[in-house]
């Protein structure tokens, strides 16, 4: 096939429906052929996540209430979410796209945007570039791509494309393409959908045909935005992300720990260790993630963007610690990832730092011990449960390599 370079920037949307379920099913691939659904997170409304094709065939739909789903399909298997695995798998896909030359803007797990103009000459046109992107995503995920001059139209095209297909919507076809698509593609609250359906508006074309002022008056700013999207959306460019930093530290606990105070101490030790990483030096932390491997086999992840970039261990620890209360199960391994760092910046140093000479001598001594005995030979004692009546659970040795 011969393709010409496109004159207007084409925005492509790579979509992997049910990505979190697919990532969780990598642990037990046989379940992909059975009626299965991603279990709701504990403590939230019991609504199902994505479902397998077999579950869909049995009448189960994503977003269905758990009780209703189990009544509809008693054989339904609930798969525990594995957010850390999903995050890792998604990062691999995004990196693979970046390696193929695309500047990627991830929108959510399983959805990313990129422009093709910069690489069309490399791959010989728009379609070959999109095929290259599909190949980069890998065949196991059933990825599909929609491409159009507008971001929302690209997303809409990706939502109707078949697995492995790259569907290109030309500018002049956009209105006709969007018109028969359902309103559920729009980022609206459920109440708004119901309101629109009550008015007899069920398709994007019907919404796009209404006067913008009337929609804004009736549905407010959200409605006005939905109306704009139904007409293709604004012509916003894609901003490729800055690749995340790769500074992380994990701590395997000798046994499953559910006590929040113990976990807070482990978190404090981890934050100090990860900040001491040479890769972090002179850079401040903008975004940080706390990841846990749970005793039940699943994982848990929370990320946090700091109000101001910081390299202060106490500040980062205080910001992360409340997240520990959200842990659903005892933890086998805790991990802190510095997801985004600022550029290296100069720092005002003290002319005569108190005790600096002693510290540098101590650091040099420890460096020599490590050099002669190997990594992991120098440890810090971290009190994790000083109140415990069992002496060996009060403190841990944590290796330090800084």
């Amino acid at each position, binding site marked *: 096939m011969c393709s010409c370079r496109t004159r207007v920037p084409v925005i492509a949307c790579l979509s992997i429906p049910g990505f979190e379920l697919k990532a969780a099913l990598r642990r037990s691939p046989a379940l992909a052929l059975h009626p299965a659904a991603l279990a709701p997170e504990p403590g939230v409304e019991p609504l199902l996540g994505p479902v397998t094709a077999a579950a869909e065939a049995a009448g189960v739909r994503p977003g269905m209430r758990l009780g209703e789903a189990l009544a509809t399909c008693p054989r339904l298997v609930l798969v525990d979410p594995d957010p850390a695995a999903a995050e890792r798998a998604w990062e691999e896909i995004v990196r693979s796209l970046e390696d193929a030359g695309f500047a990627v803007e991830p929108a959510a797990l399983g959805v990313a945007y990129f422009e093709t103009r910069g690489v069309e000459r490399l791959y010989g046109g728009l379609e070959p570039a999109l095929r290259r992107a599909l190949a980069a995503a890998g065949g196991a995920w059933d990825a599909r791509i929609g491409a159009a001059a507008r971001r929302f139209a690209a997303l809409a095209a990706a939502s109707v494309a078949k697995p492995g297909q790259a569907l290109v919507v030309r500018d002049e076809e956009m209105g006709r393409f969007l018109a028969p698509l359902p309103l559920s593609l729009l980022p609206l609250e459920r109440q708004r959908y119901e309101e629109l359906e009550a008015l007899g508006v069920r398709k994007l074309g019907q919404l796009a045909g209404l006067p913008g002022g009337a929609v804004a008056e009736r549905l407010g700013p959200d409605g006005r935005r939905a109306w704009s999207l139904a007409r293709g959306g604004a012509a916003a460019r894609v901003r490729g992300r800055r690749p995340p930093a790769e500074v992380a530290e994990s701590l395997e606990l000798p046994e499953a720990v559910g006590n929040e105070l113990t976990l807070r101490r482990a978190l404090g030790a981890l934050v100090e*260790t990860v900040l001491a990483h040479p890769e972090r030096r002179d850079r401040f932390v903008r975004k940080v993630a706390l990841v846990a491997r749970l005793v039940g086999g699943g994982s848990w992840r929370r990320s946090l963007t700091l109000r101001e970039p910081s390299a202060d261990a106490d500040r980062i620890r205080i910001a992360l610690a409340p997240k520990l209360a959200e842990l659903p199960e005892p933890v086998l391994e805790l991990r802190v990832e510095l997801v985004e760092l600022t550029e290296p910046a100069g720092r005002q140093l003290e002319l005569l730092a108190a005790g600096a000479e002693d510290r540098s001598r101590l650091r040099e001594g420890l460096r020599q011990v490590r050099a002669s005995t190997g990594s992991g030979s120098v440890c810090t004692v971290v009190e994790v449960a000083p109140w415990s009546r069992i002496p060996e659970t009060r403190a*841990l*040795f944590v*290796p330090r390599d800084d």
Partner: protein
Amino acid sequence: MVAHSRDARAVRSAGRLNEPRPARVEANFDGTPWQVNHQPVAVLREEWRVLDRWWTEEPVVRRYFEVVLESGENTVVFHDGAGGGWFTQRGA
């Protein structure tokens, strides 16, 4: 060299401080030790019990003794009521 964060080498294993160590203890009929690691006990200073984690499958049932040996060494031993056996332990 900096360990890659996705590398398994970046995972550090924490160890426990003051892990119990097996000890050779001879006990009287009432369970109090009279010899620890082939050294006679001079004074039995204190005795206490720890009963914990009884709600788990690995309950902790220990009878601790702080003793002074004839060599002058002060040591803490305990008898493991759940798994059997004698142990010495620091930090008790």
